[in-house]
Structure formats: C-alpha cells, structure tokens
C-alpha cells in the first residue's frame, strides 16, 4: 500500500505532508520547523539547506541560491532581467534553460528543489 506524499514547493518556503488516517500530517524538517526556507548554499565546501542557508545569506550572496522556483522551465534568454537582479551567478544550460552556478558547479532549478525536499 503506497503512501501519499504532498509537496508544496514554494518560492520562499517548502512544506511536505503525508496522509495518515485520512488526514495530512506535516513532516517536520531536520531543524524541527514545519516549513523549510527554499534556500540552498555552499559555505566552506559544506552544503547548507533551509534556515541555516538563509541565516548566512548576507555573508555569502554569490553561493546562496533562493527563489529558484521562479526559474523552473524558463529559458536563460527570456530570464535575463531576473537573472541580473540576483546576487548569485546564473548560466545557460545545455538546452538553453537557466542554471545556477553554485560553488563553480552548474545546477538546474529542479536539482535545487530536490536538495530542499531532502532536508
């Protein structure tokens, strides 16, 4: 009997819940919160996700990815204005879509979403 998992992949926060006895039960994040900030960072070669990534954003703007959802499914050419406003670097992916440069490695928006959901 498969479990039903619901994912709210938000631009600012993410939340996941499973169905238990006909009701949705929110899965707390590893930090104990019911929602996880949609932020991923690399600091001193360590990957930070959620609240800890958000707390260090001021000190590490170039390697802190946020609002990644807004770039899902968008081409680099059509997102240039948004890309310019971001403190982190973006690049054109193989099929022309937006990718983020995180600690020198290009990451797709869906990869960032997966990192957030795993935390």
């Amino acid at each position: 009997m498969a479990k039903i998992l619901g994912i709210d992949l938000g631009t600012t926060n993410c939340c996941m819940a499973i169905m238990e006895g006909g009701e949705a039960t929110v899965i707390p994040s590893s930090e104990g919160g019911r929602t996880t900030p949609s932020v991923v960072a690399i600091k001193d070669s360590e990957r930070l996700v959620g609240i800890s990534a958000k707390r260090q954003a001021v000190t590490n703007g170039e390697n802190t990815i946020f609002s990644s959802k807004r770039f899902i499914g968008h081409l680099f050419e059509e997102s240039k204005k948004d890309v310019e406003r971001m403190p982190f670097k973006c690049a054109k992916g193989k099929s022309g879509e937006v990718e983020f440069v995180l600690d020198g490695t290009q990451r797709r928006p869906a990869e960032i979403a997966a990192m957030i959901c795993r935390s």
Partner: protein
Amino acid sequence: MDDDQTQTSEANEQLEAAKKQVDELTEIAKRSMADLQNYKKRAEEERREFAKFASANVFMEILPVFDSLERAQEHLPEDLKDNDWAKGIQGIIKQFEQIMERFQIKKTKSVGEKFDPNKHEAIAQGPGEKDIITDELESGYEMEGHTLRAAKVRVGDGTSAVE
C-alpha cells in the same frame, strides 16, 4: 455430469478468489500493523521532544520582554547607576537569568566567535576578520544544544576598518 463439472469449476474459481482476497487483506493488515508501530514510535518521540521543549516554548513568548529589559539596562543613564530603584531592576534581570539557568537555557556566544549559521543569523557584514562576529544586535539562546533563537549578528568581511 457437465453440471457437476461446471459447479466444481465455479467453486474452484470462488476458492481462488477468496484465497486472493485473504492474501490481500493479510498484506493490508501487516502493513497497517507496521504503520501503527511506526506511528507509536514517532508519537512517543514527539511526546518526549514536546516535554523537553515545552518550557522553551513558554520562554520564547517571554523573551521579547527580557530583551527589552536588557536593552533598558544597556542604556541606563550615568547619573542613575547608583540609584537603588535601577539596581532593583538589574536584580530582576539577574533573577530572570537564574531561572533560565535552571531550565538549562544558555545565551549563545557571539562576539569574537566564528560565525555559525546553526546558531547565528547574519544581519550585516562589515570591517573585521573574515567570518568572525564583530557585533551582536540581538542575543541568541540555546537549550541542550538546540537553538531556540539564533543570535542576530554583524560579521567581519575581511576588510580593515581603517582604510
């Protein structure tokens, strides 16, 4: 003769269907049992965590009042330093700190420490040694290694204050 065979065949089919249903229901029962065990374990863990941090939740509600008291103490006018009433207020702050100590709630060390996003929240960056906290804007608190509130801090960016 044909009727007998048909009846036997139907009975076999019904038996097979019933066996299949028993297998399915047994599987569901096993899974439900496993789900119940997992739920019990999780509920127990949650109950333990809740009991441990119940006092912390109350503390979090009172914390802004304590912050205000501390700020008031920081801005105590010079001419009131020896005033008995002001000393009484300082005594109340100490009393509050003793209660926190009893509940194992500790202030997070900040100024001079290396910035740690698990305990500190960077509000600004400025002159100072790279990644070392130069100023604390709001105190942080932890309880048994768990951050209740991250300290709001200013972090050094590796530049010197005097150009």
